[in-house]
């Protein structure tokens, strides 16, 4: 408000009292958790390091990275090259595979051993991060924002008088922005009252930094003290359903089939459509994979591959968020679905409402005509 405006105010109305100022940044680290899949660094860890670096620099605090596993080899150094100032390493045979309780124990012990609680703790919004982060947040009775797509540091003015002690201006808050209402809105979530301010970040939205082998960083081994209860859950089997023969990620065109195909035979039609294109492969939704119609290597989505083809044709796929995150960056998306309200029509470029068993054969016929005419 300008001075002129202030003087215009009637005299009997007292000026707004100054809000009390709270500094949330007391020097705690920005801490990210790097995840391993099958002993390899998952990309989301490097993405978090780049976001974490930006937040740590804005705050003027160190960026630390925690890696938990067994026989970690050069992984800690890699994390230093990608931006961490401190790399905490928990290396123990009991930690070879992800399990909630042992990993939670390591995280909580580490966080409690620091002089200040971390200012911010970030994990990936993966099946691991979404399992571990709420467990850690509940242990510290702190806030956690899920599935974040943007982050920043900034002030927050809390004016809601329902809770008078909280009213004030908070500096150095984590802005965690997440989609809400079925991806139609973005909401900024804040948790300024308590550190750490925690979030899980959606994989694939932040871009890793270029590695710099000349950076200086510290690698610190952290003690691992597990109880019998911590290790009571055992892993009987780890099924990695990878196969290098289908290269979804390098294809120009992906023809994806979903549960709407109704049976395994339907994928023959997908292959026929794919054969009309150069460098095209067949993809699938998880539901089609789970139904046993096509092997897992073809799965696109959160727990499958992320693809970025020039053309993606989705046949009988509803467009669930877990599928969408794996393909929404395709240049052009064509959706064929008999349900006009299918969510996929919300983000495809071109849609055809109809029975795929009528639409796809027609499409094949027209494409073949174009090919012979060419």
């Amino acid at each position, binding site marked *: 408000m300008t001075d002129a405006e202030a003087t215009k105010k009637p005299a009997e109305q007292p000026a707004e009292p100054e809000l009390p100022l709270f500094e949330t940044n007391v020097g705690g680290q920005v801490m990210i958790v790097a995840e391993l*899949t099958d002993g390899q660094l998952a990309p989301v860890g490097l993405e978090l390091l780049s976001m974490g670096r930006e937040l740590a620099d804005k705050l003027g605090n160190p960026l630390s990275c925690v890696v938990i596993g067994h026989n970690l080899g050069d992984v800690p150094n890699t994390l230093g090259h990608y931006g961490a100032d401190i790399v905490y390493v928990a290396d123990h045979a009991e930690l070879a595979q992800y399990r909630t309780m042992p990993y939670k124990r390591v995280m909580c012990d580490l966080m409690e051993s620091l002089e200040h609680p971390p200012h911010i703790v970030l994990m990936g919004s993966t099946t691991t991060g979404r399992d571990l982060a709420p467990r850690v947040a509940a242990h510290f009775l702190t806030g956690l924002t899920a599935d974040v797509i943007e982050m920043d540091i900034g002030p927050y003015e809390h004016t809601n008088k329902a809770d008078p002690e909280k009213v004030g201006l908070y500096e150095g808050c984590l802005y965690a922005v997440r989609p809400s209402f*079925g991806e139609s809105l973005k909401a900024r979530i804040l948790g300024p009252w308590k550190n750490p301010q925690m979030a899980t970040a959606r994989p694939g939205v932040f871009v890793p930094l270029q590695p710099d082998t000349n950076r200086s960083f510290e690698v610190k081994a952290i003690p691992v003290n597990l109880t019998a209860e911590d290790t009571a859950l055992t892993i009987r089997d780890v099924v990695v359903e990878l196969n290098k023969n289908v290269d979804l990620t390098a294809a120009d065109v992906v023809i994806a089939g979903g549960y709407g195909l109704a049976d395994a035979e339907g994928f023959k039609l997908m292959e026929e459509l794919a054969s009309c294109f150069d460098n095209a492969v067949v993809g699938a939704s998880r539901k089609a994979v789970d139904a046993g119609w096509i092997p897992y290597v073809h799965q696109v989505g959160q727990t499958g591959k992320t693809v970025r083809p020039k053309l993606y044709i989705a046949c009988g796929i509803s467009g669930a968020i877990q599928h969408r995150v794996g393909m929404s960056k395709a240049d052009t998306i064509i959706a064929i679905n008999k349900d006009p309200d299918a969510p996929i029509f919300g983000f495809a*470029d071109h849609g055809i*409402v109809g029975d795929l068993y009528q639409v796809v054969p027609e499409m094949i016929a027209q*494409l073949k005509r174009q090919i012979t005419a060419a």
Partner: protein
Amino acid sequence: MTNANFNIYVLIKQVPDTGSKAGVNPDGTIDRARAKRMMNPFDKFALQAALHTKKEYGGTVTAISMGPPPAKEILLEAIEHGADAGVLLSDRRLAASDTLATSYALTKVIEYLNTEKNHPADLIFAGLQTTDGDTAQVGPEIAERLGVMQVTYCEDFSLEGTTLVARRIVEGGHTVVATPLPALVTVANAYTPLAYKSLRGAKKVQYLARTPEVEAEYISVIDLDVVNADPMLAGLKGSPTIVGKTWKIGEVGGSCVVRQGQSVANMVTDVLDATPVDEFLNKKEAVPV
């Protein structure tokens, strides 16, 4: 193998039905007063898991919900499907709870029921996530507060005595884990869909509707005082997070050109004309016509 004593809880939430257009504002926000209500779709998988456990291994199923009074509807729905009883935690002081405050309140309900039944929960099922909160946090936060094991993203499971053997979704495949009970399990939408209502369940609910005194034996509506919860730790006051500002996401839900109701051939031609398919056509190999 049957163990008639399993004490099974399932956490279900009533959410606005965004599929029906009623109450959905053009900007995607929801007018909760006008919106239709439904059981969170993910929680139907959790309910199926609870009922399956009861059927295969014995025990009783109590459905637990926190929300305003109409949430009783989904508890009755759970009974129609075969749940034994429902408990609704309803209290104005719960308004604006975030996940930590919600997990506190639901933990207090679980502890209260454990004492009432004189038998702590063996298995607690939760949905993977809600369609309105969409965080997948409430389940694990309750497990942490109760100090029990957890299995999230569960897509299939069985019991070997009191060991839960569960298949959980992970990136690149799945893992099979074995854990002693008690455990909290969040059930993924890859699990078996909820079976139809049972005739017995439906009849029971019809009967309950006619006899409110009996209904009270099956559905209890309780508040924070009953479960001995500290109101400072619930609702807005107990929530460490707050929603700051919101924005519309521009491109979502707008740009798709949908063809409908014309001849299949016309729709296909139209789409192919609008897309640069030409660039990718397989002109190398002869495609059989």
